[in-house]
């Protein structure tokens, strides 16, 4: 089984209800986003950056066993 660790921040943590969890057998960042959006529809109207193994990505990225994906929403407060 291919375990992927997901880290979430800000409002994404609020929507999902946890900031650190493991998902299994997700092939790509796109699949992860679709999967989460299906479970948490509020994510659909949200723009956020995605990092894989501590580096932000600019295109859909394949996930390997042990990959860590971070979902980073923008913050406006100051």
């Amino acid at each position, binding site marked *: 089984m291919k375990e992927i660790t997901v880290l979430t921040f800000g409002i994404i943590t609020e929507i999902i209800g946890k900031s650190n969890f493991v998902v299994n057998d997700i092939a790509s960042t796109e699949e992860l986003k679709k999967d989460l959006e299906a479970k948490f529809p509020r994510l659909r109207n949200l723009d956020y950056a995605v990092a894989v193994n501590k580096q*932000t990505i600019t295109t859909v990225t394949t996930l390997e066993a042990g990959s860590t994906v971070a979902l980073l929403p923008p913050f406006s407060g100051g």
Partner: protein
Amino acid sequence: MNEHYSYERYQRQIILEGFGEEGQEKLLRAKVLVVGAGGLGCPALQYLVAAGVGTVGVVDDDVVTLHNLHRQILFTTTDVGLSKAEVAAKRLLEMNPSVQINAYTFRLTTRNALELFSNYDIVLDGTDNFATRYLINDACVLLGKPLVYGAIAQFEGQVAIFNAGGNAVNYRDLFPQPPVPGSVLNCAEAGVLGVLPGLVGTMQATETIKLITGMGKPLINQFLTYNALTHNSFVFGLNAREETESLLPKDANDFEQRDYEWLCGTTSDAEEIDSDAFERFLLNEEAMIVDVREENEQPEVNEFVHRKIPLSLLKKKAFAFRNDTLVLFCQSGKRSLEAAKILSATFGLTKKIYSLKGGILHWKKEHGTKA
């Protein structure tokens, strides 16, 4: 400037290995502009001035309010109602009279940003809204100025240095477009732990001092997240996006023409209408009436023809709106207004977008029976 006096003032940092008198002189020659004298700006200003940054500018058109004071500890209760920039400048000068402090009490706009920024080496973003954040980013990219970014939400913070060094990454590489209005809450809506901006603003000051003196590894092209509840902190490397260039203003003229407030949905062309006006739209064949409630919400509406597109799917289905006039409703009028703002941001002036005030519940009470 009195050299002996300044040595004594800064002695504790001058004796640091890698800092020295050279580091102090670099700070003295540096010019830093802090945008926003709020939760982030105040602590950043305090430490930059205390550390001896030679010229510090502070731009803020706001006044001190009572609900600022739990986190903006440069201000006191007697400052309520006074200009933030002016009070900040006065207090900072008392802290360190050898520093040049410039207070700007106007609002940062596309008309004044480029001229103002060009007088400084580094810009520190201490603002509290997306409109100004995108404006600052785009101005810094145009001028090639390093931008020390900081932002907070509830218990979490973000810090980064954009637009510095080779292969510089900017804010739009991370977040290409402003978020849909209402999808990300600000401090006024979501709350903030008072000490959090103190921590994050201080981190911004730290990064600014590292950037000026060349000490350590500044967060250039990196993005730090910090959680005050867990003290968890992560640093992410940032990659540039190909499409970023197409999103940035081409030149000063293009920049000045842009309306960042509108882009970020802070001003909206969405209009709220009452039940009577709504009735008139029901008779207007040009208008498309849309229920933005989620599926299976009660009460059902069968008094008039309408489409159902839930708010959660709105952004994805915006292309389905072919009519030039859209009239949105939900239960109470709150979500339809949010939806109207989303669609206004998407369509700009090409469509007229209305939201039924009071929602379908209010309409049913007033008109439902005769429809």
